[in-house]
């Protein structure tokens, strides 16, 4: 299972998974957490921040089933904390090229097995660190429900409030910031027993069918032990030559 970076440049390769993600979010936030404001007759959770500015980290299993996701938006684009909940922040919210907003965090599902949810919870957090490294992100900002904060801290984040708790209608939460600490990613990997990278990002330009095949090939390659990579490359070169 990998966490895929899905954004405007490669979304055509993930059309089915993107729909699954919106459906999964609706199931989690409306069906399980009871957030009535997000209820939608089509069973999809989509809001005004699901735009080409958003990058999704989507946890997809070997059968192409979406197991969890979260949404990342750069702070220089419209985002919830600036455009909807500015008054949740005391003073100015952090912003700039190294600050991204993390929202719609939906790890797992009550309908999934416990072990899957455990993996997804860790994988999304490991992927967030890897994504941060790939984009030069130093700080994540967002709004966390008070009930979730101890879980975030348990996952090694230092969650710093930047506003007071507010009743947002579906619960009580507050604006936060948290700095990315690469050392924490090593701890998360150790806790999950994962050695390889969790994040996978497909290049732009592949059409849907090619993209799906390329994804499978890359995932296979990522699952190989380093000692076998030479052999795999040789085999691949043979195929290219034959074609």
């Amino acid at each position: 299972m990998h966490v895929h970076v899905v954004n405007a440049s490669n979304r055509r390769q993930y059309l089915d998974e993107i729909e699954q993600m919106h459906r999964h979010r609706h199931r989690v936030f409306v069906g399980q957490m009871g957030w009535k404001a997000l209820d939608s007759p089509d069973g999809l959770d989509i809001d005004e921040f699901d735009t080409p500015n958003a990058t999704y980290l989507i946890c997809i299993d070997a059968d192409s089933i979406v197991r969890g996701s979260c949404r990342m938006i750069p702070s220089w684009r419209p985002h919830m904390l600036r455009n909807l909940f500015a008054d949740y922040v005391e003073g100015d919210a952090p912003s700039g090229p190294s600050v991204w907003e993390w929202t719609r965090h939906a790890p797992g599902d009550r309908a999934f097995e416990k072990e899957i949810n455990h993996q997804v919870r860790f994988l999304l957090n490991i992927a967030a660190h890897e994504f941060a490294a790939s984009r030069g992100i130093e700080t994540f900002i967002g709004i966390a429900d008070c009930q979730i904060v101890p879980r975030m801290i348990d996952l090694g984040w230092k969650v710093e409030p930047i506003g007071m708790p507010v009743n947002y209608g579906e619960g009580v939460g507050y604006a936060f910031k948290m700095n990315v600490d690469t050392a924490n990613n090593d701890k998360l990997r150790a806790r999950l027993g994962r050695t390889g990278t969790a994040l996978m990002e497909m290049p732009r330009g592949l059409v849907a069918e090619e993209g799906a095949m390329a994804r499978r090939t890359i995932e296979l390659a990522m699952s190989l032990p380093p000692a076998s990579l030479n052999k795999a490359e040789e085999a691949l070169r043979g195929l290219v030559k034959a074609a």
Partner: protein
Amino acid sequence: MNQQADVSATTMLAEAMVSGPLFQFAEMAQVATDMDAVDKELTGILTSFGIDHFVLYQATDKGGKPTGARLCGKRHDDWRKHYVDSDMAPRDDLMKSGRHMPVPTTWSRFKAETKVRKGQKRIFDEASEFGLKDGIYIPLPQTDGSMYGVSMMLPHKLDNEPRMLSALHLLAIYYSVAANKLGRSPPEPPPAPELPVLTRRQCECLMWIREGLPPAAVGDKLGIAENTVNEHLEQARRRLGVVTTSQAVIEAIHRGLIKLG
């Protein structure tokens, strides 16, 4: 008049309170290595609100059962002793509140908005006799399904100023985080006594023996051989830790595995 003055002072404090010290406490609580230092820091902040006593405890366990197990805090010793000696936790409805919407509640608001039961009223009345006129309960749901709570108590009536309640909520969250991290967790419940599991057949054999039937007749009733009945009885005696079949019948009745008659 004095009480009114106290309320105004609390409100003014809340309004004047800048978030800086709260955010600093949040930061400190996450990296602290010593719970005493966290207690000291929180005491300093709460004293400015006129709050002298605060306790973090497990309100309910994973199954929703009230425990009231104290984890840490700066308690009011006499009141705590009275609370424990009088076994007040099971009657403390305030501790059960907040399961659906975990928001801070003051005692005065709870009294105004809830139909207070007799047992709960007695808790408030007796707390008042100990000089605790008002308080705040802040429910903190835990990831394992249990509920922690922070109780803060003070000698005068408290205003329900929203900003102050938010501030106290934030402090309580990070106080609980520090307590969890530094190992202030509730004591493990005593292990449930192990029930010897008898099979359905073993119970049936014992029930017919209880009726006075010999093993051969029991075999007839159950459609099994006498030897098989004896084997079931032997297993039942072994599992119940007794010597004779009569003792097995008595023990099985005593432990609720079969009925008396």
